[in-house]
């Protein structure tokens, strides 16, 4: 974190005429490193497939699992691929209420990914803002923010998220809890993950602050807010991107864990964690597919995002580049 990462596009020497975006992308170091790592390519494809499947669920899912009108209760517990009583066959089987597992998982990943992305975005915004303030202003603000981050980092994120969730549920009237649950969850997970962002951004900002371009901007009389957001911020984004990817995997797992514990999203909007919680009930009676497919989806999602984060960290680190 000592050296600011040079944006890879500018690292390659600019040749003649202005080139298109795709041309520049294919010439960049990032692309080179990506195309040389089979594991990363597979991880990208898996992550993309899962994200697309989740995002397009309302259009491409074979069934609408949460519309009682289209669910055949008679088809409950149909094993994967088998012919159900109503004559339909379900690729991944059905759950106890006859809902198609494939569609349930697609809608479930939708909730998981939405919460994961939103919570990471929230943690990132908060962390960057506080990190920039601490790093640029220094002094008391720095001490205060970093102390809070230290204390928070010594407590496990899941505990903090649980506590925030519990408190929020106590403050919100019971009638509105179902609509607000997803947002409370995003708030709780976001608030439990901001500290890593703040630490990194603060470190990089303190290095950047010493540089000539910041002094120049200050001499020109730009106000501190503009210096920080327009000049310093773009230069600290490299490490932030890496943390954001890893943080996304963490947020997805955290959401799954909370929902598994039964304190996350309401049962009307099941996420992958809720599906696993439901599936565990049928583990002993032999209906393994109700548990196995959501679990595999969650593992694939977490693993592929984690691998992408690992690769990004190495690809953006100039010291590892040869």
């Amino acid at each position, binding site marked *: 974190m000592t050296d600011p990462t040079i944006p890879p596009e500018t690292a390659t020497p600019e040749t003649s005429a202005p080139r298109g975006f795709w041309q520049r992308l294919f010439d960049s170091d990032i692309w080179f490193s990506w195309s040389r790592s089979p594991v990363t390519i597979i991880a990208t494809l898996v992550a993309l497939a899962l994200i697309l499947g989740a995002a397009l669920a309302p259009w491409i899912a074979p069934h609408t699992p949460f519309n009682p009108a289209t669910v055949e209760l008679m088809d409950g517990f149909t094993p994967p691929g088998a012919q159900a009583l109503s004559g339909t066959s379900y690729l991944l089987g059905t759950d106890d209420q006859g809902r198609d597992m494939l569609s349930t998982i697609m809608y479930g990943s939708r909730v998981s990914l939405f919460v994961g992305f939103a919570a990471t975005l929230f943690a990132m915004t908060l962390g960057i803002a506080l990190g920039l303030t601490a790093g640029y202003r220094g002094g008391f603000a720095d001490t205060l923010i970093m102390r809070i981050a230290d204390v928070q980092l*010594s407590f*496990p994120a899941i505990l903090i998220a649980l506590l925030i969730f519990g408190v929020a549920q*106590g403050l919100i009237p019971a009638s509105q809890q179902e609509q607000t649950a997803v947002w409370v969850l995003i708030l709780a997970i976001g608030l439990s993950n901001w500290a890593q962002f703040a630490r990194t951004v603060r470190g990089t900002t303190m290095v950047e602050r010493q540089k000539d371009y910041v002094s120049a901007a200050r001499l020109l009389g730009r106000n501190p807010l503009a210096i920080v957001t327009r000049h310093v911020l773009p230069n600290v984004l490299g490490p932030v991107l890496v943390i954001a990817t890893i943080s996304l995997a963490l947020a997805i797992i955290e959401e799954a864990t909370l929902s598994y514990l039964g304190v996350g999203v309401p049962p009307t909007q099941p996420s992958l964690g809720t599906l696993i919680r439901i599936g565990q009930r049928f583990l*002993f009676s032999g209906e393994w597919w109700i548990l196995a497919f959501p679990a595999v989806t969650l593992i694939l999602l*977490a693993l592929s995002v984690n691998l992408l984060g690992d690769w990004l960290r190495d690809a953006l680190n100039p010291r590892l580049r040869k």
Partner: protein
Amino acid sequence: MLIFILRRLFQSVIVMLVVALIAFLIFRYVGDPIVSMAGVDTRLEDQELMRQRLGLNDPFYVQFWNFLTNALQGNFGISYRLQQPAMRLILDRLPATIELAVVSATLALVLGVLMGIFTALRARSFLSGVIMTLSLVGVSLPTFLIGIGLIYIFAVELQWLPSNGRGVTVQLGWWRTGFLTESGLRSLILPAITLSLFQMTLIMRLVRAEMMEVLRSDYIRFARARGLPDRVINFRHALKNTLVPVITITGLQLGSVIAFAIVTETVFQWPGVGSLFITSVQAVDVPVMATYLMMVGLVFVTINLVVDILYYLVDPRLRVQGKGR
């Protein structure tokens, strides 16, 4: 030495006060205690009377002071859900969690250090490769999935081990232990493995990295030049110097064992404080939540303090620095 401990002790007290303040704020302002205790059909005058008697109209600092003095005497109020003192609920379930946490932490420490040493010394071997790959997968899998996987293999398919509960327990004074019966010990195996896996991989990777770093250093090369046997070099010279960071991380990780115990206890329906906390969060049972927070805070602060003092005892450099001041 004494000054160092006193200063750390003072910091710990401050942190505890902050935790107490948060617990108090949750206790006092999340939901209305009167409504939770009295129910909706109590007359307004009676509610006001209760408010007076419980001191809820007193100024903020008086209430906080009362909360603190009560907390020091172990009095955290009555659980809204179970109508029993919150402290007693926690104490009843504490032995289950402590037994689980201690067994898992020991497991993680012993196996983690052993595997760490092995993978560092035999970095090229096939088995090291297997261990390292498995540890990578272990880190990215959520705890509850590992637990469910173990239940599926050992309880459903093989039917070797029980999948939930503590088995038969024995009452020893106020401590209810599962160590003394066969079913108690068998019930402990799966939850303990689940809870220890994450810490185990963490400790293993740390020991491995530190050990490889140390093995490259000059004094190890010198020891080899002196013709000392490998066993002495690896264990007396190298391992000793890797242990300082291991102690710190392990100590701090003990705290997360308690947090992950929440998840593990839910998967295996282990009757500990973690599952009590989950049901309290679901039911917004504020006194139990506040008590749990205080308890976890106390455990964390104590662990931090002990680790700092251990650090001081293990690393002589810190002592010399302390004397110089």
